[in-house]
């Protein structure tokens, strides 16, 4: 027969056994000296963070007030950013005399392409004659016949 789940009398009698468990003899006479020695060695010094966490642990009111302050600061910053952003963007739009559309050329790229005209392509030297490209510019690393670096001048470049 199982014991009544709500009758704990036998269990409580059995729990009395725990009160008879004792540490080794002399333990409690040595413990204060051990603790004092550890304190004198400077053990357990609390840093800033541990002190802060102690306040959190032992002061529930501090936790609530800190949480409220953090929540308030967050709310204010969200409201401020929501209000300020539309005002700033409207102000910027009003101050600008041009927009990206006005920067486009008047005779735009959308002008019709005439396939009867030869195609001119400008190369990097500025010449638009494809059949007669400009002579290549001397490189900074060109060497002469003797293998020495040659001075380079761009004065005579086309």
């Amino acid at each position: 027969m199982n014991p009544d789940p709500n009758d704990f009398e036998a269990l409580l009698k059995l729990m009395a056994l725990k009160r008879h468990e004792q540490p080794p003899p002399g333990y409690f006479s040595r413990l204060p000296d051990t603790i004092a020695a550890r304190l004198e060695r400077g053990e357990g010094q609390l840093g800033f963070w541990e002190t802060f966490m102690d306040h959190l642990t032992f002061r529930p009111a501090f936790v609530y007030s800190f949480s409220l302050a953090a929540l308030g600061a967050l709310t204010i910053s969200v409201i401020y950013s929501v209000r300020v952003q539309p005002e700033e963007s409207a102000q910027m739009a009003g101050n600008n005399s041009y927009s990206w559309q006005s920067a486009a050329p008047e005779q735009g790229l959308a002008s019709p392409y005439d396939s009867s005209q030869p195609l001119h392509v400008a190369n990097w030297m500025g010449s638009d004659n494809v059949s007669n490209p400009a002579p290549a510019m001397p490189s900074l690393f060109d060497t002469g016949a003797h293998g020495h670096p040659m001075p380079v001048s761009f004065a005579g470049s086309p």
Partner: protein
Amino acid sequence: MGAYDLLVRRYQERIYATVYHMTSNHEDANDLTQETFIKAFRALRTFKGDSSFYTWIYRIAVNKSINFLKQRKNRVQMSLNDMDVNAENDPDLVALVSEKTPRRDLNLAELQEKLNAALLRLSEHHRMVVTLHDIQGLSHEEIGHIMDCNIGTVRSRLFYARQQMQAYLSDYLK
């Protein structure tokens, strides 16, 4: 330091017992008891006296024990203390062993091991309530202050923990 030495001597047995019943291990209880008193000494300036020193230092011990057990994830190895000589003469225990316990050959040491094993199967918070109330004799209100919860929570945890213990130890409680 002299005054603090007196405080240690005054509360050491209760703090040690709390931590020991939570861990069922003398070495762990020794470490945690020392750390509790060291932390209390360093944090004395944060103690404003809005609760008794007794409650305050108990709370440090409870937090340290629960954090320790969570880190260990309940992989606690038992290292049980011996029972004092009075245990053999305790009429309740004598009755349990010689009459009510179906396994007549079970001695006190084996019963102690079964009891501690059952305690270790409880969650940390349930074990703490059972320890503080049923072993150490603290009131529901004191436990509520120490564990930072209301009396209703203490009562419900105690009831649930006892039911669990009863189920784990059903073979020894007939």
